[in-house]
């Protein structure tokens, strides 16, 4: 069997979010469950219909267990593969295989984090990571992770291709302009290129405005076989392609700092979908840092290697630009609760359903969501489409 046979065989039938921004007073599990309830209700299902579960967390090594327990699930399919922020896009393929084989009928993919307001703060987590995810050939040099890793990649992109800090800033400004069209986005104040350049430097060449937000938030979606999906409440959003690639964990082990494994995940996902970049109407790229967006525009084939700086210039990916990218405001301006991947899927689904109000991309038929995890380490690409694209 070719993966091509899985094209369009599964569809997302419900999405939900909770605790986006500040979930003060709630635990990560509580907002995860609220997002799950919303996704299940959005699909017109009940929690009893869910017989597959995919979830993971940075803060718990056995996270699928308490999630199944809390939601009262007895899943016949469980995936808790932890690849960092790309995880919830990478969870698509095993879920599709499980659905296609008949192992289960409705998979809930869910995530929640209270990294902003919770007791397990970002600082505590960063200290814990040094023990549970040791990087013995990096930690002694005190890189501020993750920003320094991405800053190193940015330094290389600037060196090799003449990319400028102003071009990096364009990515943050575009994200903010989209966020201003999204009432749910956390950061909606005006932001100029000068504001980004003049904000506090974190790890050169990245300022605090080149870095994603630190927020709370939970997201969930429900995936079903296409023939079942058509019977549900919402317009199904079909998975046309999905692929995941991992080449390294540490930034110091990356072969080329300006070429990520997204070149592989993107190619495989496009092959499965039988599509090319120019077919895509709306794009979501995991923008943990401004350099990410440039790297992924190139690696996924939206522009040639080295040319993403020019591609994003003069509002190239902002509202009204040449390509709508990160229309919810992205990790830079909408929401970023530790791992952001699931929100890329949710925004792709909403765009294809036409639910996006002021930020709606006209006639959106094909959406791409690209997740990144670790420090440019794991890459997962998904391509979604409406019924007419099957």
């Amino acid at each position: 069997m070719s993966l091509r046979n899985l094209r369009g065989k599964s569809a997302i039938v419900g999405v939900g979010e909770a605790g986006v921004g500040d979930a003060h007073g709630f635990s990560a599990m509580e907002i995860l469950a609220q997002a799950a309830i919303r996704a299940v209700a959005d699909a017109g299902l009940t929690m009893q219909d869910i017989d597959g579960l995919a979830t993971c967390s940075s803060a718990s090594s056995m996270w699928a267990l308490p999630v199944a327990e809390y939601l009262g699930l007895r899943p016949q399919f469980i995936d808790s593969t932890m690849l960092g922020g790309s995880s919830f896009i990478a969870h698509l393929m095993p879920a599709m295989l499980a659905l296609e084989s008949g192992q289960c009928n409705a998979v809930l993919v869910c995530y929640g984090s209270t990294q902003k307001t919770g007791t397990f703060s970002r600082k505590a987590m960063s200290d814990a990571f040094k023990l549970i995810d040791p990087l013995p050939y990096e930690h002694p040099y005190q890189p501020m992770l993750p920003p320094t890793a991405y800053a190193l990649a940015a330094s290389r992109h600037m060196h090799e291709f003449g990319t400028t800090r102003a071009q990096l800033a364009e990515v943050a400004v575009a994200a903010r302009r989209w966020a201003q069209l999204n009432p749910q986005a956390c950061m909606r104040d005006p932001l100029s290129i000068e504001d980004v350049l003049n904000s506090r430097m974190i790890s050169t060449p990245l300022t605090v405005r080149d870095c994603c937000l630190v927020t709370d938030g939970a997201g969930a979606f429900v995936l079903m076989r296409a023939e079942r999906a058509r019977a549900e409440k919402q317009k199904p959003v079909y998975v046309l392609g999905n692929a995941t690639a991992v080449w390294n964990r540490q930034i110091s082990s990356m072969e080329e700092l300006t070429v990520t494994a997204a070149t592989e995940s993107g190619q495989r996902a496009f092959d499965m979908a039988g599509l090319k970049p120019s077919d895509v109407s709306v794009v979501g790229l995991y923008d943990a840092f401004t350099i990410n967006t440039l790297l992924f525009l190139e690696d996924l084939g939206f522009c040639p290697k080295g040319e993403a700086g020019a591609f994003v210039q003069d509002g190239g990916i902002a509202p009204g630009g040449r390509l709508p990218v990160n229309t919810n405001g992205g990790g830079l301006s909408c929401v970023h609760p530790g791992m952001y991947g699931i929100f890329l899927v949710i925004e792709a689904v909403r765009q294809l359903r036409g639910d996006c109000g002021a930020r709606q991309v006209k006639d959106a038929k094909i959406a791409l969501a690209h997740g990144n995890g670790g420090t440019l380490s794991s890459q997962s690409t998904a391509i979604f489409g409406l019924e007419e694209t099957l």
Partner: protein
Amino acid sequence: MTTNDHSSSGPDAVFQDYLAQGEFRIQQCDSCSRHVFYPRVLCPHCGGTRLAWRAASGHGAVYACSVVMGKPGTGTDYAVVLVALQEGVRMMSHVVDCDPHAVKIGMPLQALIIEKEGKPLVVFAPEKLVETSHGAAR
């Protein structure tokens, strides 16, 4: 030229032991001849399991650089670099004896071993500085 057949400790420990003796050694695969960093029990290029410990030349150049900013005015900014070693491998490190903001991609570097928190650590200095103030790196 020691081979990696120490029965009592793994490559991580062997690397540290060499550093403690003042030697910066990296592995080279017997099968494909490529150098390997960080130390491993197999070659990530070809899967070979015979890896020899070679004395590193210590010569390298800045491949990528980021200055981590400390509190303004405290002089605590420091440069984190990826160094391309002459042997064709890359490692994270610090550049010492140099204004962190003066570190540039392509700058030639020379390795030296310092002690940090009771452990030996490979750092780098601009190549000329090493010759004048530190002597040849070991």
